[in-house]
């Protein structure tokens, strides 16, 4: 579903991504792990379309999307989730998701009230139910907890009917209970979707990933199934050992 070849990005003298090759098959959950400051964020930003690569190509479902900006990729079904600035704080949970539904529908309107538009509200409610926020639909996002924001983000990402979902550290900042709930949500999610999971939380990674790629200093040093990665000497030295 996703094919990355030779992705390279430098900032001045610093080579943040050095000719990365990366594949995601349809239906799989492919995790990307690696120490911070080793080019992971740069890699993700280029995948998502927030950053232009210096060299290399990204093909999504057979189409070259290397130079497509983020919102265009979202329209094609390749959505990034969990950036630092998360939700629309001035809107309720329901309207947050309704906005995502609206964006995906591509239909505009200058006169009819959007807040009572059933074509937007019904799907939004369903999505909220799916992620477990059904009861919190009318709560302003500003009043929700961090964990709920993350659930909301999953709902919003799902609203765009993505074919490939890029989850950027979904566990970050979550307590133990919230993490469990998120892992369960993602476990339900992975059955129907193709996911790229970028995470530090090894518990989540090993429970959810079908394959893992390890990114260290701009290079992929290993790719394989979780057990192989766990056993890999180089990976343990470079990364897992330090954890």
């Amino acid at each position, binding site marked *: 579903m996703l094919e990355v070849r030779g992705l390279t990005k430098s900032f001045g003298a610093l080579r943040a991504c050095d000719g990365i090759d990366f594949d995601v098959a349809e239906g799989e959950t492919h995790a990307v792990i690696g120490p911070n400051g080793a080019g992971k964020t740069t890699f993700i930003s280029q995948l998502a379309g927030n950053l232009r690569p210096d060299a290399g190509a990204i093909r999504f479902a057979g189409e070259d999307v290397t130079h497509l900006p983020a919102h265009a990729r979202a329209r094609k079904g390749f*959505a990034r989730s969990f950036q630092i600035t998360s939700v629309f704080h001035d809107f309720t949970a329901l309207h947050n998701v309704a906005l995502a539904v609206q964006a995906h529908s591509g239909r505009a309107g*200058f006169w009819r009230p959007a807040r009572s538009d059933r074509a937007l509200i019904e799907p939004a409610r369903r999505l909220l139910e799916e992620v477990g926020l059904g009861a919190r639909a009318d709560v302003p996002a500003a009043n929700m907890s961090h964990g709920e924001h993350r659930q909301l983000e999953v709902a919003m990402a799902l609203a765009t009917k993505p074919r490939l979902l890029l989850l950027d550290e979904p566990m970050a900042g979550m307590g133990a209970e919230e993490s469990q709930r998120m892992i369960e949500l993602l476990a339900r999610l992975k059955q129907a979707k193709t996911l790229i999971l970028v995470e530090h939380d090894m518990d989540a990674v090993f429970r959810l990933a079908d394959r893992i790629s390890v990114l260290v200093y701009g290079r992929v040093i290993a790719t394989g199934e979780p057990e192989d990665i766990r056993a890999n000497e180089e990976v343990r030295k470079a990364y897992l050992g330090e954890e």
Partner: protein
Amino acid sequence: MSARLVLWSLVVLVLLALPPFVLYIDQPFYLDLVRRIMILAIAATSLNLILGYGGLVSFGHAAYLSVGAYAVGILGFYGFTSGWLHLAVAVAAAALVAAAIGAVSIRTSGIYFIMITLAFAQMLFYLGISIEEFGGDDGMRIKVTSQFPLVDLANPVVFYYVALVLMLASVYAVFRIVNSRFGMALRAAKSNEARARAIGFSPYPVRLAAFVIAGAMCGLAGALYANHTRYITPDLGSWQQSGDLMFMVILGGMASTAGPVLGTFALLFVEEILKGWTQHWQVFLGPLLVLSVIFFRRGLAGIFSKPDA
């Protein structure tokens, strides 16, 4: 919701009843004053669309007042007095200018956007001053008001009601627009631009469209203003006027339907009171505005009701 409807109904009733009352107590000045306030409230409402709901700090909005007003003036100068023509040209010209300025400015953001909209408006101001045929610095007189069938704008009371109807229509129009899908996209982009992009909205076209609509509406206000004052000067598009418009929006409470109307009434009434005391009223208004910004964040509408989410 209904509390707000009640309040609006009261306001409308008061405004409807004003002319007969004013004529009864023989103070036609107030008719003029309130009419002027309502016309400027249209301009403030248009600014609220892009500033309050869109988060675009456009410091050159008065330029569209000027464009609208001069459209009427210039057409009249050449003998075209049809009111429909005046309105059409005023709105179209303002929309065009807004499209041109917006196309360049909206690609920037933050402080750049503020300075750039200010600079472009000033450019138009200088342009206006330098064209001698239409009065240049001194401005031009409007000899004949826009001619409409049935409605005579030269009649102060008739014009008052026209202004009232148009003001209510603009407020309603903005209300519908900001609650539509388009409005939601605009507000989403204001609330969290990165997020809006991530879900697939492209802020630029939405903002540009809002900018043009706001400009067009302000052009309409300008056309009315020309008919009201019968004498227009380039000062109508000055940045002092733009600043005034911004205060009308802020004082009333941004991102609320009633805000711009309340703010316009508040600001202009305060101005009138101060003008009554001294010719140097700005030396008091200035600090009042400073204090209002420092201490009075939510604006007047915040007192009566919660702003729209």
